[in-house]
């Protein structure tokens, strides 16, 4: 399922050096759990995002393993330290092998 997947990230555009900032991420994905059945009683196969990572200038901020118990449109809120100007890189890994990416630049000042 690679259609209609859209990552959205809220991060500050600028921060003081060493400041701790809050990041909010959301990706539109139906997160089919593999538990549900369609109207004919057939099991709907599992199709979820199984991993999410956030990095800043190549250093890891958070790495999350997701299970089918994460809601539709997986949402994460966490905090990151910004030591210098640079870029956040967010990556979502789908069960079907697709990788979705987003990035946000942060300036110092």
């Amino acid at each position: 399922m690679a259609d209609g997947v859209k990552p959205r990230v809220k991060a500050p555009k600028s921060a003081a050096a060493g400041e701790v900032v809050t990041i909010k991420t959301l990706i539109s994905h139906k997160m089919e759990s593999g538990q549900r059945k369609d109207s004919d009683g057939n099991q709907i196969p599992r199709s979820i995002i199984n991993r999410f990572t956030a990095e800043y200038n190549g250093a890891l901020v958070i790495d999350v393993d997701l299970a089918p118990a994460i809601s539709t449109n997986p949402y994460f809120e966490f905090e990151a330290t910004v030591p210098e100007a640079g870029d956040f890189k967010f990556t979502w890994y789908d069960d079907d092998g697709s990788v979705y990416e987003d990035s946000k630049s942060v300036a110092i000042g």
Partner: protein
Amino acid sequence: MEFSRRDTLALGAGAVALTILPFQAVAAADDMIAAFTGGADVAEGGVTLTAPEIAENGNTVPVSVSSEGAEAILLLAAGNPTPDVATFKFGELAGSQSASTRIRLAGTQDVVAIAKMADGTFARASQTVKVTIGGCGG
């Protein structure tokens, strides 16, 4: 469809299996905790787990975990068909060892968070969440 005696017995056996299933899920949660901790002792406290007391919709229950000095936090829902919910690993640039997300809960149950501290010890916290409408589409 007509039910023969054999079918009826099979259905009955199936119903019994279904009622036993929740206990198996709890055992699965214990197995997952053991796999995460490697059998080490888990202390109560040291982790903050924030979840609503009553969740009207089990499909999206906001949950946040935080634990100062944690390397990783394992989040479990003991009453779900598969208890695993998420594992958070914190890197060097994590501003704090905390995260929020939204999870699915099949019914009223305990949500458990286990934190792996940087010094190799483990801590846990759990909270019961009452779910009005389950979120596993059964």
